[in-house]
């Protein structure tokens, strides 16, 4: 090939790089590994991670059972080794799948249109508020303190240099955003109000009441959904203007935090302000139905600095997994699944309460997560549970110091009654120990 091209050595192609910068030796990285060694290396790393633990962790990443069909289909090279469907004639598989995904997200969220995906729930929430700014021409945003703390951190990073002042609305005694405080924070310069439901405490917010409040002041309501399975049994946020969802629960591994699948949905009238890719229906020259990427004049490759977002690569393959998952469970299955999550979480909450833990926010409805407060530090309880190969609830002190020794517990359908009971026993043991100690102290 070199001869045909007319060069003497491969090095000639790199002569354009100034000599002083050209590498003369090897990169200082390990030698090449055989496939068998690579598998062994990662098996060892997997073993260094905990395996075989039952986890009560949620907080934005949910461990649901993943039907095997998902990976059988998503592992087809035709899907995972393709790229963005810029050439629709040879990308109809991806495009039709996106169209079905968009449809199902609309059905579940009560919105009119949904995009092909965003990076994740946190960046999607930030983009949701940026969209509210574009639609309203206003600049300020209000975020409920019950929105995932890491989502709020991400939004703060995005907003800082875009002239988007943010304020945070506190939560009330029932674990929902404090409506009076929220009302005071919204003014005629507020573009968007962001809430999460079920919120970070697992509590379902009163979307209709908040939407009324927000709309009266001419702002848009952005609703973030972190636990997508909730949509099987919790009323969709149909009163919202923008829904930003994290669809990880739909068949995506928790995978140490990613890749996940954000998705944004909105009302028809805001369609030209939505970020990200959209698949739309059309016909070919013979009138046959087909799908294409559409409305791309919103996007960076056409509009450059005037685009709705800089997003290009999205989470397509993960969206495909979500799509397959939604198809497997469908209209009845998602409901039954959500029902099981609801039952497990309520059983656990009651058992933990009986064991002496204080159940917070009992007055408001919750889905599959709830907050308890304990006399002893969460870490002490969790350390003992870890010995039984149970990962306990998420300590909340780091995010909400005022809550003291509180923790967030998630019960998906994968948690068995036996494990819930085992935790209850442990809670009771620590509680009675504390009581005994207090007795001695008196």
């Amino acid at each position: 090939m070199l001869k045909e091209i007319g060069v003497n050595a491969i090095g000639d192609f790199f002569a354009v790089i100034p000599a002083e910068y050209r590498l003369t030796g090897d990169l200082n990285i390990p030698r090449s590994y055989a496939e068998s060694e690579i598998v062994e290396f990662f098996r060892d790393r997997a073993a260094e991670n905990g395996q075989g633990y039952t986890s009560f962790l949620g907080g934005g990443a949910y461990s649901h059972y993943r039907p095997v069909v998902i990976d059988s289909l998503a592992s087809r090279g035709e899907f995972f080794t393709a790229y963005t469907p810029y050439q629709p004639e040879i990308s109809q598989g991806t495009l039709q799948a996106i169209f079905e995904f968009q449809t199902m997200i609309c059905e579940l969220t009560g919105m009119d249109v949904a995009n092909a995906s965003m990076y994740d729930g946190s960046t999607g929430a930030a983009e949701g508020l940026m969209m509210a700014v574009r639609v309203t021409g206003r600049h300020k945003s209000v975020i409920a303190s019950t929105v995932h703390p890491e989502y709020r951190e991400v939004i703060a990073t995005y907003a800082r240099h875009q002239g988007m002042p943010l304020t945070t609305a506190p939560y009330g005694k029932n674990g929902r955003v404090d409506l009076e405080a929220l009302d005071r924070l919204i003014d005629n310069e507020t573009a968007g109000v962001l809430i999460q439901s079920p919120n970070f405490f697992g509590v379902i917010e009163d979307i209709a009441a908040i939407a009324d409040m927000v709309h009266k002041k001419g702002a848009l309501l952005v609703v973030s959904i972190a636990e997508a399975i909730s949509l099987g049994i919790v009323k969709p946020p149909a009163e919202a203007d923008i829904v930003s969802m994290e669809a990880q629960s739909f068949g995506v591994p928790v995978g140490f935090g990613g890749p996940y699948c954000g998705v944004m949905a909105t009302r028809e009238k805001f369609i030209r302000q939505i970020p990200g890719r959209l698949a739309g229906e059309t016909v070919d020259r013979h009138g046959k139905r087909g799908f294409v990427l559409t409305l791309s004049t919103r996007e960076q490759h056409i509009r450059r600095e005037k685009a709705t977002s800089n997003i290009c690569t999205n989470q397509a393959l993960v969206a495909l997994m979500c799509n397959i998952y939604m198809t497997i469970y469908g209209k009845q299955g998602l409901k039954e699944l959500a029902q099981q999550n609801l039952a497990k979480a309520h059983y656990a909450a009651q058992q933990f309460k009986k064991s002496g833990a204080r159940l917070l926010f009992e007055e408001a409805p919750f889905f599959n997560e709830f907050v308890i407060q304990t006399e002893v530090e969460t870490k002490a309880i969790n350390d003992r549970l870890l010995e039984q190969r149970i990962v306990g609830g998420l300590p909340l002190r780091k995010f909400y110091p005022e809550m003291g020794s509180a923790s967030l517990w998630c019960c998906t359908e994968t948690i068995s009654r036996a494990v819930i009971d085992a935790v209850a026993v442990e809670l009771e043991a620590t509680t009675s120990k504390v009581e005994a100690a207090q007795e001695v102290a008196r």
Partner: protein
Amino acid sequence: MNSKIEKAATHINQNEGLIFEKSSPGKKAYKLPPLDVPEVNASALLGDTAREDLGHMPEVSEIEIIRHFTRLSTWNYAVDHGMYPLGSCTMKYNARVNELVARLGGLAEAHPYQPEKISQGALRIMKMLSEQLIEITGMDAITLQPAAGAHGEMTGILLVRAYLESQGNPRKKILVPDSAHGTNPATAAMCGYAVENLRSNSAGMVDIASLEAQVNEDVAALMLTNPNTLGVFEQEIHKIADVLHAKGALMYMDGANMNALVGKVRPGDFGADVMHLNLHKTFSTPHGGGGPGSGPVACKKILEPFLPTPVIFSKPDGTLGFDYDRPHSIGRVRMFYGNFGMFVRALAYIMANGPEGLRQTTEDAVLNANYIRKHLEGLYELPYKTPTMHEVVFSDKVQTKKGIRTGDIAKRLIDYGFHPYTVSFPLVVPGALMIEPTESESKEELDQFIDAMKNIADEAEKSPEVVTGAPYRTRLTRLDETAAARKPVLRWKPATRS
């Protein structure tokens, strides 16, 4: 008209409607275990927030789902089918072992909030990947948090901004060459900067004189892709860096084209201050029909204090942990730690290659692009004669005389069994054909591609209507994109009876 097509033949593939059109009540593809806790009454627990109905969600059986998505998959072209020379996207082979290791239970089922004590394997993977990417780029520090290239750009420019702010003035402008990806100006705008265009010279490179004229105390950084989108290495890269640094501005390098450099030269050595990598391009993590990606950002020491939280650190006892106490950090750009599954795949890729393999990869990618250039030059106009690195950009200037545009040639290439190149980009070349073969292609595959392109050039000359009517062998002919945008139909709706 198809006699010269050797690589591809038509074959039967199945028709398939939308999943909603196959749905009927009572069909199901799931089975839940019996509930082992007491049943609850949802409407009693949830009150008026309870949901009754899931609308038009589908109800289908498992075999129908398997067939549905299998049939859809057969309508796609993918790297697994053949050469996918989409310029700037680096569509290389995705090794299967990477998929296997990313799905190992201990990694795929690790919760991001599980105790660090039982996350050491994941942390070690992140640390090893970080160290190796730092070595490959010649930088000092890195964050793996950004979810994709454009997200990495945003992170990098925020680092620049935070650094300049710490020096007293964040400045106002970002310079972006006219050949840049659209994400560059869009990113600069998201970070609160004005975008100023920088024209390239006749060799397709940054013009040092106009750069000198444009860089002043208002310029925060230049966002430079190197090799640029013409596949041309910026030979005066160190001078570019010097011009910027002399005025206190930084050099951001868009690492989209890093596949031309790995193991041969390191951006940190030639003056880049901060750059992103696309793990889904250079480091072979699959493109997945549009994502997921991963866009780590590597930087020089001066920018390290500003990296997103958390960063990995070694504890005194030798274990690894996350450090959240970073007072100068720009903050988080994503929840948790980034697209971890992509870190596993990228590390597996680097391990499979080793230092010699990575260098060879780069050499093969550049060799393949030059081979294509050599054989197609003359048939297609080569607007910039500057030496080619990993991708070559032609224009449709010759074919335009017969009314044929780059988009037509692309569609005809489909009939020959190839995915088209990148069409009409970079914008500096009117009617661009941007071809990036990657190292994955054999000489045989390249020769077939070259033959296809030669045949199309011939067809364009002799029977242009063949080219403008393409493709012929696909399920669908050209789709009406204008109609799609004029009256957008973005979701299925049940047929309404009038």
